[in-house]
């Protein structure tokens, strides 16, 4: 596994360029957003319609259209979230930048990483993706969670960011 990683990501350290999320993450992001939004709109709307007695059929159609509309918006947001997220690793820190309208660039210095979580849901496993959670001792932003990373990238980051034994002073 590790040999694979080093073969696939040799340029990472040297170039230090901003890297996008995995291409397959786009469909996962959008799919998840659409399904959830569709269900979460349609179910309450249908219940509201059925609770009323008269002409539920036409109203149900309305609820369906509403659900399509909201999930369309969700898909658009998810697509933008995917497109506008980049990450970069250099000698000092891991950087993640997100968003365009509300831009945010997070910097986690490598020496401040406490521990890492590596998460893979069923959808991520199927698409060769992984979620990496980088924990620090901070308070407001104690965990940087980034989903939609290519498995090899996530594994590389995990291996590189794992805190070395710093010779605790305690």
């Amino acid at each position, binding site marked *: 596994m590790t040999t694979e990683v080093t073969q696939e990501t040799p340029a990472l350290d040297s170039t230090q360029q901003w890297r996008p999320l995995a291409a397959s993450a786009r469909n996962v992001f959008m799919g998840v957003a659409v399904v959830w939004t569709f269900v979460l709109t349609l179910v309450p709307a249908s219940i509201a319609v059925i609770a009323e007695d008269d002409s539920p059929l036409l109203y149900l159609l309305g609820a369906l259209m509403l659900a399509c509309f909201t999930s369309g918006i969700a898909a658009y947001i998810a697509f933008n979230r995917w497109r506008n997220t980049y990450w970069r690793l250099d*000698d*000092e*820190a891991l950087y993640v930048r997100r968003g365009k*309208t*509300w*831009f*945010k*660039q*997070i*910097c*986690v*210095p*490598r*020496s*401040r990483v406490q521990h890492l979580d590596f998460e893979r849901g069923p959808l991520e496993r199927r698409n060769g993706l992984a979620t990496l959670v980088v924990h*620090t*001792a*901070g*308070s*407001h*932003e*104690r965990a*940087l969670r980034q989903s939609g990373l290519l498995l090899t990238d996530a594994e590389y980051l995990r291996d590189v960011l794992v805190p070395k034994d*710093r010779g*605790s*002073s*305690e």
Partner: protein
Amino acid sequence: MSNTEEIDAANIATASEKLRRLHPLSWLFVLVLQLRQFAFPLIILLFTGRGDRYELWSLVGVAALAIYSVFQYFTYRYRVLDDELIVRSGVFQKSVRHIPFSRIQNVSITQNVLHRLFNVAEVKLEAAGGVKPEAQMRVLSLADAHELEELIRGHAMVAQMATSAVDTPAADTEILHKLSVIDVVKLGLINNRGMLVIGAAVGFSFQGAGDLMGSLINKGVKYLFGWSDSMHLGASGTALSVAFAIVVFLILVRLFSVLIALLQYYGFSLSQLGRRLTVQRGLLSRLRSSLPLRRIQAYGLSEGWLHRRFNKRSLKVDSAAGVAMNEENKSPLRDLVPLAEPKEMDELIARFLASDQWPIQTWHSLHKAAWQREFMLPALFVSIAGVAGAFFYPAYAAILVLLIIPVLFLRAKVWSAHAAFAHTDHLIAVREGWLSREWRFAEISKLQGLSLREGILDRRYGMASLYLDTAGAQAMSSTFRIPYLPREQANILMAQLSTKISQGPLPF
């Protein structure tokens, strides 16, 4: 823990390292503590006269607790070894806990009135990185408590001297700061804690005893109106009396705050032993707690309007977990220097930082349009509220709302005149505020993460804010950020800080 370990420990133990128990009366204090949680609902039940059956049940509960407390006393034992403390406890589920002295960051000793009556104290041993105390001894005789404290502190000193030759700790405790009674009164007037207490009490009574509070308020309002009716005051007279009532209320709250401050801060003293600070305070319940200087994560210096009248400032610190939390889940060392004159405060801070970088000489201003950014958003909200209000109310109401806008303008201007940031070799600092001013700063090596944020409005002005994350920051306190920097400068600052953080060691 395994049996062999226990036997080993027993072999090592010398005669002085005997098995110790808590104070013989400790069951009483455990009981009192647990009863306190029952007391308030019980009182409310008694007053509202509801649920006789529940009272009976609670009596059964009290009896069970009493028995449990006694058992707890009989099972809790501790042993002091050369370099560790062994605590055995548990009624059914036995546990043996080994606590190496080197892990203990803080020993806090609390004495409330009841404790003082019996000459005992509650001792908490705090380890690094834990919210819950490593061991909580409820209660020890005062002599035992002090002995334990000395022992652990002495050990910490020895360990420190062994590890860092550069550090030359002073031989004895040095008192850095004290508050006189007058200072404590001023502190009460300034911090206005009474308002918080009253707010919490009102909130609770609405939740817990709606009927009781409701009827009280009803009666109060009726009485007031009846009184004003009988006086035949008319509209302006009523308004005047209401205003008068409010003023009286506010004065009473301040007086109440002074009382709270006296209870909490009477006899405040801050002392330093080696690289460790110790705070001692309290009128009825005495509290003593200590904190290694290196565990301070960030500083917050504040100067309100009343502070300026008294020529004082207040210093709060964030410390990483491991400092004794009291009942309100707040570190007693958070208000490290509750009140001091600016000059004295600067000297204290320089001492805590162990550098000459405080007070900071050169402050850098924010983006030129920072005042516009600070003014724009609230002004927009007020305008919208004003316009919306004009539809529902008589138009003059909306105009009254719009009168806030000049105040907001003034606020933004004063704010931007004061707002600035500083970046020295070891420190990152930001100052803000208008009526009350605030300085936030931290050693760069204590920063845990950075983030740069830019909203729609920010983009228009070409600015970004840099958020600084430190350990132990209180959820309630304002975030540590350098607002409204020119975009390019924010990027550069972020890169510089990142480099500095990476070069420094992890600060624990």
